[in-house]
């Protein structure tokens, strides 16, 4: 995978809202053909990162560091103004079709306007053809074109959102909890669809989710975000089979097993201190079961263990 070209790269990236840091030191890249799952609980800063990647941070936000995006010529370029990239270089798949589509517009109208935006010279019949093709590419039929959002099932709506994200043929797909409104079967199918977009269309797919179990299995790499910082990044198989950061381990232990034996109590993950307060310590120094005095004195440096990178003074180590 790393030999593939990089489509999106964040380096030392951070965001302040009203001069309070809520995201810091983010280093992350997404390559062509891969699916990356960014896992973070509510309050981890994942929404801020998502908005920043789309250039849709609130007016009071300030960003630090670099964001680089793929160019049409294959190069990578730093971008400050992301406006022209929206829908064209980076396609966004929102969370819930019932709230992310405009209730008074049909599927056809939604598709047509995005197609018109990204291909200004096109005619309406050309766009109608493209709209039907887009629906086919996400496993739907043209039958849905005249429907309003409320008349779509959860799975159909989510696929329409993917079709809309694909309308500008973006190099990168950014999905925000794309399966949270879906039942297991539809979840499975949607993840397969996103994965095919990476494998077959060679896009880079970044799925942001609060749920390690729901999306990580479909990803090639997992990045865990907590308290506004990344704490562990690595190949999915490595991270899920042998988590090294105490938080990752706790997130996994928090999910009940399907079959016995079951623990009498499920683990509840330690809470990180807010990003703003962490300058010279580990965000978990106050709540982590493994914390030693050094954790409260020095921020943990990144180290590579068993095929992934982890930011912890006392990683769990190979079992």
């Amino acid at each position, binding site marked *: 995978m790393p030999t593939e070209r990089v489509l999106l790269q964040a380096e030392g990236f951070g965001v302040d809202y009203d001069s309070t840091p809520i995201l810091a030191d983010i280093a992350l890249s997404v390559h062509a053909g891969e699916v990356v799952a960014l896992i973070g609980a509510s309050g981890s800063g994942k929404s801020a990162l998502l*908005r920043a990647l*789309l250039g*849709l941070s609130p007016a009071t936000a300030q960003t630090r560091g670099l964001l680089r995006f793929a160019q049409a010529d294959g190069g990578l370029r730093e971008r400050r103004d992301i406006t*022209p990239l*929206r*829908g*064209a270089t980076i*396609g*966004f798949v*929102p*969370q*819930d079709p019932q*709230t*992310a*589509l*405009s*209730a*008074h*517009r*049909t599927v056809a109208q939604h598709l047509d*306007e*995005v197609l018109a*935006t*990204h291909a200004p010279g096109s005619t309406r019949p050309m766009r109608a053809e493209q709209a039907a093709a887009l629906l086919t590419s996400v496993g739907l039929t043209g039958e849905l074109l005249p429907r*309003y959002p*409320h*008349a779509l099932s959860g799975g159909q709506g989510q696929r329409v*959102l993917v079709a*809309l*994200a694909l*309308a*500008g043929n973006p190099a990168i797909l950014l999905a925000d909890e794309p399966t949270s409104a879906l039942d297991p079967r539809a979840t499975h199918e949607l993840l397969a669809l996103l994965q095919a977009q990476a494998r077959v269309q060679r896009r880079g797919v970044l799925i942001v989710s609060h749920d390690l179990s729901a999306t990580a299995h479909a990803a090639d790499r997992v990045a865990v975000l907590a308290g506004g910082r990344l704490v562990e990044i690595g190949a999915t198989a490595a991270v899920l089979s042998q988590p090294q950061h105490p938080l990752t381990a706790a997130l996994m232990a928090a999910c009940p097993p399907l079959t016995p034996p079951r623990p009498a109590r499920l683990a509840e993950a330690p809470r990180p201190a807010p990003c703003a307060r962490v300058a010279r310590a580990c965000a978990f120094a106050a709540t982590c079961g493994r914390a030693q005095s050094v954790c409260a004195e020095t921020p943990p440096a990144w180290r590579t263990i068993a095929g992934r990178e982890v930011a912890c003074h006392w990683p769990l180590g190979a079992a």
Partner: protein
Amino acid sequence: MTRHPWLRLVAGRLLAAIPTLWIVVTLSFLLVRLAPGSPFEDEQRLPPAVRANLDRAYGLDQPLPVQYARYLAGLVQGDLGPSLRQRDRRVVDLVREGLPVSLTLGGLALSLSLLLGVSGGLLCAVARGRAVDRWLGRAAVLAVALPPYVTAPLLVLVFAVGTGWLPVAGWEAGRPADLVLPVIALALPTAGGLMRLLRASALDVLDSPAILAARARGLSARRVLLVHVLPPALSPVIAYLGGAAAALLGGSLVVETVFGLPGMGRFLVEGALNRDYTLVLGKVVVYAVLVLLLNLAADLAALGVDPRLRERVYRGVPES
């Protein structure tokens, strides 16, 4: 079970309006009649014989139920009865003269307040918290708080008496200049109300995931605002407009009096002061019909912006 759900809706509403109208007419009839006094009381030194003649001529000597039945019978045929104080005039003729004036004035005021209210409300929502928003917000509060009997004379003082740009008052049919100040005076409170309502609903929509998603698709700011924010933001406005429009179109007492316009608003003053029963009732009937029609129009407009409502009508599911 006709094949046209829209027609069925409209027809159903119109049918349902009949009993409503009947109740309004009956209550108003009773109220007008139970108030003390009579149309011919204050005319001085009216000989009892003349008075009895007058009463007989207008049917006022009959028992109240008979008068009521006669009024209803006339109403069904579109006759609102004779004016009791303007001899030889029928109320229908007076309405025919006054209503076009009021409708013109009210229609223009409605359009102006929509224009100001919607554009101002959208502007405020987009510029939330910035100076434009704050100043427009204050202006809207002022527009709502100041009644037309304050703004109308002020407007006259500045633009007619002071600068002489516009006529002080009067109505020469077809002279647009006569309407400028009355339309503004009439539109301001509604415009202010609309603006505040639209600002609030547009802010709700702007903060919704649908708008984040629309912007993330790369749509232009203008398109997002006009196509994705405005229609859903209009929903609460439409509900409010039904009532507001009836008040504007039904004739404004204050504005018509201040500017000397021969509209419907005048009726109420003259009719009430003179106990011109039929004239007052006529105004009530016209007003009630307007309210019913405009509410129907508002409901149809609401269907226009909300496909879920539309579907419910198509499926014939009763409104809950």
